[in-house]
C-alpha cells in the first residue's frame, strides 16, 4: 500500500468469542438476576417432589384455614387443610411447562409465518396476513377460551390454545422486522455477492431478529403463565385436584374476606414468575445489542 493511509487500531486487538449466556450474565447484572430467578423457578419445578414438606393433594380437614407461619405449614393451609407451600411449589410444575410449550408453539409457527410472509411478499404475504388478521380479530383470552372449549378442557389443550393465541404477535413482529431488514443495504449487499435466500435468512435476517423476538418471548412467556392461570381459574385448564396457581386463586377467591392469603399467595407466585421472565428478556435485549455493549 503506497498512498492509501493506513488506519491502525486505537486500542489493542479485541477478540470476540460467540456470545455465551453465562458470559453475558457475568457482565450484566440484569441478566444475572433474571437468569438466576428463572433458574430458581425451574429448579423449584424440578425439585418440587423433594423439597415440598407435604403432599400437595393430601387433605387434613382438621388443619384447614391455618394462617401463614403456622407451625408445620409455613404458608398455612387451604379450605381442605392442604399445605399451601407444597401446592405453590408443585404449581410451578404446571406453569413453567405450559409457558414453555405455548411460547414454543407461538414462536415456531408465528416466526415461520412472519419470515415467509415478509421475505416472499406478494400473494403469499397477502394470504398469510389475512389468516393472522382473522386470529387477531378475537380478543386473546376469548380466543383461548373458545379453543379450549372446542378441544375439551385439559392442560394439554390449554397449552396448545395459548400457543395459537400467541402466533399473531410473533408473525406480525417477525414480518415487520423482515420487511425492514430486507430493504437494508447490508442485505442488498449480500444479494449482490450472489448469496442464496437461505443464506440471507439464516445469516442475516434471523440474527438481526433475535432482539425483538427475545423481548416478545419474555412478554409472551409472562402472558402464557397468566393465560394458563386464567384458563385454570375458569376451570378450562388444570383440573382439580392438580395443584395449579390459577385454580388456587379460584378457590381462594371465595374466602377472600376472612382468609385472603389463600388467593394472595398464588397471585404472588404468578407475579414473581411473570416478573422474572420479563426481567430476563429485557436485560438480555440490552446485553445482546452490540451497539450497547461496552
Amino acid at each position, binding site marked *: *500500500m*503506497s*498512498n*492509501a*493511509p*493506513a*488506519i*491502525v*487500531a486505537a486500542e489493542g*486487538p*479485541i*477478540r*470476540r468469542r460467540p456470545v455465551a449466556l453465562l458470559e453475558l450474565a457475568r457482565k450484566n447484572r440484569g441478566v444475572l438476576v433474571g437468569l438466576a430467578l428463572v433458574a430458581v423457578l425451574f429448579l423449584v419445578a424440578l425439585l418440587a417432589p423433594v423439597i415440598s414438606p407435604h403432599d400437595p393433594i393430601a387433605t387434613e380437614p382438621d388443619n384447614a384455614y391455618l394462617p401463614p407461619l403456622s407451625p408445620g405449614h409455613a404458608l398455612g393451609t387451604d379450605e381442605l387443610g392442604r399445605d399451601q407451600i407444597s401446592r405453590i411449589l408443585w404449581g410451578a410444575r404446571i406453569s413453567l411447562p405450559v409457558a414453555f410449550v405455548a411460547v414454543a408453539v407461538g414462536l415456531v409457527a408465528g416466526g415461520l409465518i412472519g419470515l415467509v410472509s415478509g421475505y416472499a411478499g406478494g400473494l403469499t404475504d397477502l394470504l398469510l396476513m389475512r389468516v393472522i388478521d382473522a386470529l387477531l380479530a378475537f380478543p386473546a383470552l376469548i380466543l383461548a377460551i373458545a379453543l379450549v372449549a372446542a378441544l375439551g378442557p385439559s392442560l394439554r389443550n390449554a397449552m396448545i390454545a395459548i400457543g395459537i393465541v400467541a402466533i399473531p404477535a410473533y408473525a406480525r413482529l417477525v414480518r415487520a422486522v423482515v420487511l425492514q431488514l430486507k430493504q*437494508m*443495504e*447490508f442485505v*442488498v*449487499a*449480500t*444479494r*449482490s*455477492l*450472489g*448469496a442464496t435466500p437461505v*443464506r440471507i435468512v439464516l*445469516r*442475516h435476517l434471523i*440474527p*438481526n431478529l*433475535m432482539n425483538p423476538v427475545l423481548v416478545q418471548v419474555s412478554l409472551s412467556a409472562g402472558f402464557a403463565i397468566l393465560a394458563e392461570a386464567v384458563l385454570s381459574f375458569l376451570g378450562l385448564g388444570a383440573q382439580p385436584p392438580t395443584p395449579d396457581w390459577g385454580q388456587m386463586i379460584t378457590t381462594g377467591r371465595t374466602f377472600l374476606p376472612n382468609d385472603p392469603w389463600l388467593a394472595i399467595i398464588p397471585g404472588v407466585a404468578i407475579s414473581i414468575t411473570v416478573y422474572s421472565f420479563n426481567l430476563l428478556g429485557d436485560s438480555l435485549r440490552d446485553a445482546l445489542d*452490540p*451497539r450497547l455493549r461496552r
Partner: protein
Amino acid sequence: MAEPLIEVRGLKTWFPVRSGVVSRITGHVRAVDGVDLTISQGETLGLVGESGCGKSTLGRSILRLVEPTAGEVYFRGKNILRLRRGGMRRIRREMAIIFQDPFASLDPRQTVGDILGEALDIHRLTSTRRGRAQRIAELLGLVGLSSDLAGRYPHEFSGGQRQRIGIARALAVEPLFIVCDEPISALDVSIQAQIINLLEHLQEQLHLTYLFIAHDLSVVKHISDRVAVMYVGKVVEVSPAGDLYRRPRHPYTGSLLSAIPIPDPRLERSRERIILKGDVASALDPPSGCRFRTRCFKAQPRCAESEPPLDTVNQGDHQAACYYPLA
C-alpha cells in the same frame, strides 16, 4: 478507446403504482426510462443528476439488484438480463457495489471478518480457514485498515472506516466492475478525499471499471473519465469529463454546472447562475417530448412534439439530447 465492458441498451425499470382496494396497477414510476450507456474497460463513468432522477436505480438495474422492466445489459458481450439463477450467481463474482450509507450497509451482528468472509464463502474462494483469514487480512490491508480489526463489529468504526470495509467487501470477489452508489455523499469532506484517493488507487492497482454515481459535480469531475447526466429517468448528455465541464451542450447540464460555486470571491460574484423555474418533472407522468422542456429556458414548440434522441448533438464522444443546445 478500450473495448466496452458494459453496454446498456434501452434499459427501462418501471415500478408499478397500485391503489384502491384490489391493488389495481394505476401507473408506473419510470425510474429508468430507456437508457443507453457504454462503459469501457478500465474507465470511470460518472453518473450525475438530482435526487430521484433514477441514478441509483440505473446502477442497481445494471447489477440486477432491481429487476429491469425492459432492455438489455451486456457484460463482456453477454446479456445478463437473460441469465438464469446459476449463471447470474457466477456473474456476481465479477460485479460489485459500494453503498452510500456506511452505517446501513454493514450487518451490525457480524464481525468485519465475517462480513468480508461471506463473499469468499459464497463463491468458495478459499478452501481452508487459514486461507480465509489470510485473504481477509489482505483485503483489509488493501483498503488501508489494520488486519487485526477483523474481530471487531461495525459499530466500533467511524464512517470513513466503515466505508473502507464496504469497499473491501466489494473487492472480496475480485470484481471487474464496481457500481459506486454515492460512496462519499454520507462522509465528512475531509474523509471524502481519502476515499476518492483510495478508489482511484484501487482502480489503478486492480484494473477496475467504475460506474460512479454522485450528485456532486466537482467530485465527479475529479474522478471520472466520462460523465453522463441524467434527468427524470433519461440520460440527457454524455461526454468526456473535461469537455462536459468546459462546454456543456444540454441546457440542463448548463444549469447544473452554473450552480457550482467558484472558490474565488471575485469570480464568484460575477458568476452567472441559471435559475430553473418550476419543479422536477414527475417520473410517474413525464411531459411529452423532451422531459426537460417544462423547466427549460430554451424550450420551443418542437420540444413538446418529439423527444430528442441522445445523438441529436453528436460530436464524437460528446452527445446531448437537445434540439436547441447551448453553444
